[in-house]
């Protein structure tokens, strides 16, 4: 026993005297020891921690699989790349082949490839100014003065006097402090949402909102809560739940997001209730009014005007200029701070070339026409009402027309009984569309990017009312659509 202890000590001493630097360590420990073994022990712990951290390396993934060269080779040989562009289905192919092609300029009436002129109810030309002579004249003037494109983002020599004029004109028209022009209608709201709402901010979104809003919501990386389409009780429930779950947590930015006129349903949001709830729960409102601006309300000032609310009370008001204004691009209107913030933080504004002058001038001219003829909006609504009335009174139980708000210009006609597949429904509706085109009215099915919508809306035939049509033309067109439905449904024995 004693011998064993002794040999151990001798061995230890041998190691000590043979390892270089051991004397330094010994001296260090002796000097630091200061007759207090606890301190030395604590220091030793630190040395161990230091060594542990220094010599440790990144932990390897536990489920890492080691493959041999042969296995790797086999896997590579087996691999077949997925097609870059997925093969189109038979339905998609026929859809493409049978697409109506417009020859020449589009307008309230337009010629198809066969040379026959037809009434156009498939364009978002709500106040009927598409390709009007005065806009064409102004556009030609702008083309001669400014050329074709701006080739620069607004912050880098892309801003022209006409852009600033248009921004002021829109702000004046809506009665808000300021507005900002985007060069793409779709990316306006997709850019506005992430400009204000960041990670850990809260968005409350109507679940019938279209792809532009959904993309913006996705890009913002915020916390998203959806409420059932136009269900104000559900909205309040969602707001209450959020309030409860964030009671003790720091305040974040919060927004309610809705479309003014819903593209998928043709109805309007319940703006007065939403305004009341946003005040009560201290949210801001982002209103996407692409289908309402210009054609809803007594003078075309959109969904807010329809409900007697000043557009200035809506915190962030977005719309495209491609619909009512028959141009291109979009705008966002609101208080000065809201607009100025976007000039550096609205990515679609900062990093896109500005709207070509020719389109800005066209939009400005269309806005002037709308301002000078405030009844254009009412005419569009009356046409929409007349068309809805004919379709509602058609007495075809197999079709359904959204009739919550009769005045919106977008009319969806759906089948009441669902067929076995969506494709089958679309085929029936396409027959209706083809029949209408044969009878002299251009209409279209509502088309969506499947898999990109939150809830894919039920298939429908879409009619766009316009102030450019006379009342008689509108009624005639509605009659043709009604008759086409009757005929096709009868042929399919659905009637």
């Amino acid at each position, binding site marked *: 026993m004693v011998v064993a202890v002794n040999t151990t000590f001798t061995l230890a001493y041998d190691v000590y005297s043979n390892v270089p630097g051991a004397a330094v360590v010994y001296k260090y420990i002796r000097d630091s020891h200061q007759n207090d073994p606890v*301190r030395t022990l604590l220091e030793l712990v630190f040395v161990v921690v230091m060594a542990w*951290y*220094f010599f440790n390396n990144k932990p390897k993934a536990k489920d890492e699989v080691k493959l041999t060269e042969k296995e790797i080779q086999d896997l590579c040989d087996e691999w077949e790349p997925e097609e870059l562009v997925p093969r189109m289905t038979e339905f998609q192919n026929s859809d493409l082949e049978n697409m109506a092609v417009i020859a020449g300029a589009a307008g309230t009436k337009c010629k198809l490839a066969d040379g026959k002129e037809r009434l156009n109810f498939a364009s978002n030309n709500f106040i009927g100014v598409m390709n009007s002579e005065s806009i064409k004249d102004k556009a030609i003037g702008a083309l001669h003065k400014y050329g074709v494109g701006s080739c620069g983002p607004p912050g880098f020599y892309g801003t022209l006097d006409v852009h600033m004029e248009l921004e002021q004109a829109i702000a004046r028209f809506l009665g808000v402090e300021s507005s900002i022009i985007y060069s793409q209608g779709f990316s306006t709201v997709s850019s506005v949402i992430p400009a204000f709402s960041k*990670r*850990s901010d809260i968005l409350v979104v109507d679940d019938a909102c279209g792809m532009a809003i959904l993309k913006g919501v996705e890009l913002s*990386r915020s916390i998203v809560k959806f409420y059932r389409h136009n269900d104000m009780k559900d909205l309040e429930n969602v707001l209450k739940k959020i309030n409860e779950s964030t009671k003790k947590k720091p305040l*974040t930015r919060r927004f309610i997001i809705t479309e003014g006129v819903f593209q998928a349903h043709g109805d309007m949001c319940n703006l007065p209730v939403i305004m009341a709830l946003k005040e009560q729960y201290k949210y801001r409102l982002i209103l996407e009014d692409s289908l309402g601006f210009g054609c809803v309300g007594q003078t075309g000032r959109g969904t807010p005007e329809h409900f007697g609310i000043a557009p200035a009370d809506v915190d962030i008001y977005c719309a495209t200029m491609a619909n009512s204004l028959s141009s291109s691009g979009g705008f966002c209107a609101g208080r000065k701070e809201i607009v100025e913030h976007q000039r550096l933080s609205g990515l679609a504004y900062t990093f896109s070339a500005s709207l070509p002058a020719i389109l800005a001038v066209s939009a400005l001219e269309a806005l002037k026409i709308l301002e000078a003829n405030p009844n254009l909006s009412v005419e569009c609504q009356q046409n929409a009402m007349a068309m809805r009335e004919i379709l509602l009174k058609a007495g075809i139980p197999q079709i359904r027309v959204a009739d919550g708000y009769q005045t919106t210009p977008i009319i969806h006609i759906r089948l009441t009984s669902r067929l076995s597949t969506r494709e089958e429904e679309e085929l029936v509706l396409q027959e209706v569309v083809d029949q209408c085109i044969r009878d002299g009215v251009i209409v279209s099915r509502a088309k969506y990017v499947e898999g990109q919508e939150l809830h894919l809306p039920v298939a429908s035939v879409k009619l766009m009312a316009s102030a450019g049509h006379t009342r008689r033309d509108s009624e005639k067109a509605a009659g043709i659509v009604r008759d086409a439905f009757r005929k096709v449904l009868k042929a399919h024995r659905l009637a």
Partner: protein
Amino acid sequence: MESFSNTNSSWPNLRGSIATNVFVLVFLRMGLGLIPGITVEAAWTITNLLYYSITFIMFHWVLGVPFALNQGEFEDMTLWEQMDKGEPFTPAKKYLTVIPILLFLISTHYSHYDVPTFGINFIALVIVLIPKFPSMHRVRIFGINQKSNTD
């Protein structure tokens, strides 16, 4: 591949940041030593505490980045957590862990701390070391310094 780099947290990986650390420490200790009437123990303790508190505030207390980056991805993360995409045991994290410990060991060697002074230095070092452990990644003990509401 990184789609963008977090410029707020990449500087500890720069060449020369170790040398800067050492230089600052030597400068601090010598500067304090020049003040007349100050004892060796006090000079070392002040050097330790200053270094510990400054690095603690820089690496483990201040949250987020001073500019807008990736929709606020880093807004509830300390600099230590942002560094090297949150991976532990990277070279920068190694030297930033080793330096404070070495500093402590050297200071105990060159001075004769009494028990309270030793205790102060010891506790300060422990506080600085705790958030450096990999298991403390994104952990907020007792909710201290908790910022955002993760849903």
